[in-house]
Structures are given as C-alpha cells and as structure tokens.
C-alpha cells in the first residue's frame, strides 16, 4: 500500500518530466510544427518565426547562459559554504547569511546592466551577474543543510569511529543533500528565468524573440520565446525537485 503510493509519486514525477522534456524538444527542433501551432495561436500575424536566429540557436544560448552561471555559482557557493563551516571560517558564517539576504535586494537584470561598461555587451555580463547572484543562496543552503544534521547523529558518527571526512561524506552531506539541492534548484530556476532578460544586454537567448515581439507587436514572436522558456523552466524545476528515499513512505 505504502510502497505503491510511493511508486505512483515517482511515476507522476517522471511522467511530468518526460512530458516537459518532450515539449521543450519539440518546440526547439520541429520548427515547422511549432510554426503551425503559432499560426493557430496568433492568426493575425504575417510572420510567425523570429527571423534573426533559429530556435535551436536561441535555446542553446539560453541553456548555455543558465547552465554556465548555475555551475559556476554552485561551485563557488559550495566552496564558500564549506569554508564558512570550517573552524577558521565559522567567524564569517553570520556575515555570509546576512550578505545573502542583502544581495536579494539587487535586481538580477540591474546587475547585468551595470556590468556592461566593464565587460561589453554579450553573454559575459549575464554569466557574471547570475554567478555572483547565485553564490550566496547556494552557500546559505550548504550552511543550513549541514547545520540541520541532528547533533545526535553527528555524535554517533564520531562515536562509532568515523573520521571527519567519512562523517562528512557518508552522513552529513547525504542528510544535507535535499536542502542543498533545493538551493541549487532555486538558483537554476532564477537563472533560466533571468537568462531571458539577457536579451537586454545582447546575450541572445529566448528573450530575444520576446523583446522583438514587444517591439513589433508580434504575438507569434513573443510566444515563440515564451513557450519554450516556460517549458525549460518547469523542466528544470521538476528535475531538481527531489525527495530523498529515506524521507518517503
């Protein structure tokens, strides 16, 4: 009974992921088919596909922007969070937490725009801005994840004779993992969303047809950028929504 409902949860999750992945892939690769859909949704237009770049390129740019920034932020955030948990770094723990909430007051797109004078237009300001923006949330989740490990469990791990690294690898990280992945998910979702705004600083991505659509009052261009980016964001969200084995049932 219990096992079956767990299986059902897992099944619906994977069905959702498969459907979103299929939708994203279809819109990206089947330009003809997607155009037919856009013709139905925006019958009044005379042009349905954004002419400057094909959707495959735009999608590739979008994924590149989000993935590069997410990977860099995760690596740096992990390092910062781990550092703040060491005997030396613990002094900076509260500072990291405070700065993390402070950084949320700066709009992502503003950070991109402010970097343009330093980096020029293109993907660089987007990747740098999103990386900077993502580091603190990841560090925050690494810290709170590791700190949420019950002290008894930590004590038992040391008490039965685990070395420090064994305790971290076998007990603390697995237990902190859901919280850490939750942080990574937030950052990835923000990055997929913010990457559409990369169009503002000429970084490419799915925001370009949307902005072009606003500019030309073309519904089809807007939807051509909006629908795949929404599918991609939902896909990332679903993929990174995980519940560990030991918490189920």
């Amino acid at each position: 009974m219990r096992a079956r409902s767990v299986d059902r949860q897992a099944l619906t999750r994977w069905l959702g992921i498969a459907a979103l992945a299929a939708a994203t892939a279809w819109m990206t690769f089947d330009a003809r088919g997607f155009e037919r859909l856009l013709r139905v949704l925006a019958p009044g237009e005379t042009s349905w596909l954004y002419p400057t770049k094909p959707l495959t390129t735009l999608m590739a740019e979008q994924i590149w922007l989000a993935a590069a920034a997410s990977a860099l932020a995760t690596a740096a955030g992990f390092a910062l969070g781990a550092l703040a948990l060491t005997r030396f770094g613990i002094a900076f723990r509260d500072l990291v937490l405070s700065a993390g909430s402070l950084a949320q007051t700066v709009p992502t797109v503003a950070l991109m725009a402010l970097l343009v004078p330093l980096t020029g237009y293109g993907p660089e300001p987007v990747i740098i801005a999103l990386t900077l923006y993502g580091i603190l949330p990841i560090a925050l989740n690494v810290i709170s994840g590791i700190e949420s490990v019950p002290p008894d469990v930590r004590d038992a791990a040391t008490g039965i004779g685990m070395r420090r690294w064994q305790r971290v690898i076998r007990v603390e990280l697995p237990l902190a993992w859901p919280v850490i992945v939750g942080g990574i998910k937030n950052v990835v979702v923000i990055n997929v969303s913010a990457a559409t705004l990369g169009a503002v600083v000429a970084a490419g991505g799915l925001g370009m047809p949307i902005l072009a659509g606003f500019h030309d009052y073309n519904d089809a261009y807007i939807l051509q950028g909006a629908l795949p980016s929404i599918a991609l964001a939902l896909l990332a969200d679903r993929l990174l929504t995980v519940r560990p084995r030991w918490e189920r049932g």
Partner: protein
Amino acid sequence: MSRTEASLHERARAVAVSGAVLGIVAALAPFGLVLRQTRIDRGAGVSLVDALGAWWWAIVACWLLVALLARSRLPLRPRGVAASLLSGLAPVLALWQAGVFAAAYATKAGDLSRVSLGPGFWLTAAAAYVAVFAATAWLEPGLLRAALSYGPFAGAGALVAGGALSDLGILKEYANNADAFGKQFALHLGYVGASVAVGLALGLALGLLAARRPASEPAVFGALNVLQVLPTLAFIGLLYPVLTRLSERAPVLASLGVRGVGWAPVVIVLAAYAVYPIARNTHAALTSLDPAVIDAARGIGMAPVQVLARVELPLATPVILAGLRVALVQTTAGAIIAGLVGGGGLGTFVFLGASETASDLMLLGVVPIVALALTFDRGLSGIETALTRWKEPA
C-alpha cells in the same frame, strides 16, 4: 555572559580585521573613481589614492584603527562603538571627497564630463559593511547599535541633501531627470504597493484555505509553484496576447489603460509572484501552532473568535509578516521589469542606461530600488522582532 556569546565576540575580531584589510585593498584599487569625457564614454579609472589626496590617508587611518581596535583588549562597548564609527566613517569620507574631486574635475573638463563611483568605491562600501557588521556584534541590541549600523546611510543621505555630491555622475543624471525621477519613483512604489496588496489578499486566503482544508494543499501550492517558476519576461509575454484582446473587446478596460504592455501585465505578474511567499508562510504559521495552546485557550473558555484574535493571530502574525517581507523585497526588485515593457518605474532609467552604456543613469534606477528594498526589509523585520518579544531568552 555565556560561552557561545564570548566565542561570537572573539570571532567578530577576525571579521572586523578582514573588513579593514578589504578597505585598504579598495583604497589602493586602480579603479576608485571613473572619469568620462561624456556621459556615455567608456571612461578611465583613477585610484582613490590619486583622487582623494590627503584625505586618502584619513581613510586608510580609519581602517588601520579598526584593525587595531579589533585586536585590542578594550572592553566590548567602547571597542564596538569606536570600530563601527570608524568603519562607517571611511566610505562616507570617500564619498564626500569623491564629490569634492568631481566638482574640481567638472570645472576643468567641462559640463559634459562625468565622474562616477568606481569599483574601488563600491569595494570600500562593502568593506564598511563587513566591518560594521562585525563591530556592532560587540554591542547589545538597541538604539545605539541601530544608530551605528545605519549611520553611514544617514551620512550619505546628508551629503546628497547638502549638495556636496551634486557634481557626481549619478546626481547629474538626477538633475537632468528630476521631474521624471519623481514620477517614476512614485510609479515604482505604486506597482509594489498594488502587487503586494493583491498578493497579500490572495496569499492570506490561499494559505488559510490550505491550512483549514489540507486536501487542497497540494493543488494550491502546486499551482503557486508553477507561477513562481515562470520566467518573468515569458510570463508577461504570455499575458500580452490575452490582455491585448481583452482591451480590444472591453473598452472599459482599455480606458483604464489595460493593454498587452504597460501597468496591467506588470501588476499581474508581480502579484502572482508575491502570492507564494505569503501563502506559504500563512500556511506554515497556522499549521505549526501548538495544538495544546489552542486547546488551553478553548479550555479556559475563549470563544472561537477570541481564540483566533487573542491566540492564533498573535502567534501567526510574525511568520506571516516574514512572508510579506520576502514578497516586498522581491517585488521591489522585480518591478524593474516594468521599465522594459512600457510600464515605467525606476527600471526605465536602468534599461535606458543599459542601452546607452551610461552606468550613472542605471544607478539612478538601481540605488533607489535597493534603498527601498532595504527599508522594507529592515522595517518589517523590526516589526517582527517587536512582535516576538516573548521568544527572547529571559
């Protein structure tokens, strides 16, 4: 004093020292200020050493004293007061002298020239944040600590108000856009107010629904999560055809200014994002109440309304306020998008600045946004603290 407090005070020493070191590095950085012949020129950097003359030594002296104080055996209170004052003084001095330098540069290089605050200055501000954060940890929470924490902001505000900075790029942009600035600032606040008001009403209702009818919880939060995940620009894009057609069919709406772009999609999108944190915290607040407390309230003879008013709400309010705070900060930052889709607001300056590579114009939008968000954040967390006095240790 407990052992943990003592070790916290010890740890703050290292943080304060690193703040001071960062401050000295910033003072030596090659890009202290940025000089431009015209407002959209790429510009050349000048270090704070070159720009500030003798005052540079005063700033470095501030940092050295902070580092010395941090290592000293002085009692906590005087050590905390002196170190926070000096740390806060450094960026204010730098800002003031940047203004003086800008005035001199303007008379030399002409009216079109611009002096902007560069990475070196912003790093000085960051160093001050680190050092003040550490130094105020040596003080008891209270009025003095608050005054020392926010003093530097007051100092910067006084410099702006007193006209000492009017030759800096950002204030020249302000002077050029004074009328528009007031209007866009008000508009930005209007977007935030309207969206958060709608978000609050919906969030309270949905949070209450999910708490009282647990069966509805997955549907409510599933839907809100999807909304939360939608990319802003794509969300507005999705609304565009819908709102365009709505306004074509319903002249009433059109006369209110509802169009595919403009205020309508902005408020809808921001309100949709604001619902989630408020609903989540309302739900959490109501479901995490200790049943024994409710039981006791009923047991001593309170009517259901009294239980809600005297027990449930006072216990839940701080948690709901925390959700409101997240929503406010997020919306204040998010409302920048209005500038991109014809809605105005402070984002207008940011996107205009981005297209011209005029960083001072961008800052004219960004600085007030950050200031607003910080004000909301600090203000509401102050209220939360005041409402949770009962949580403080005896």
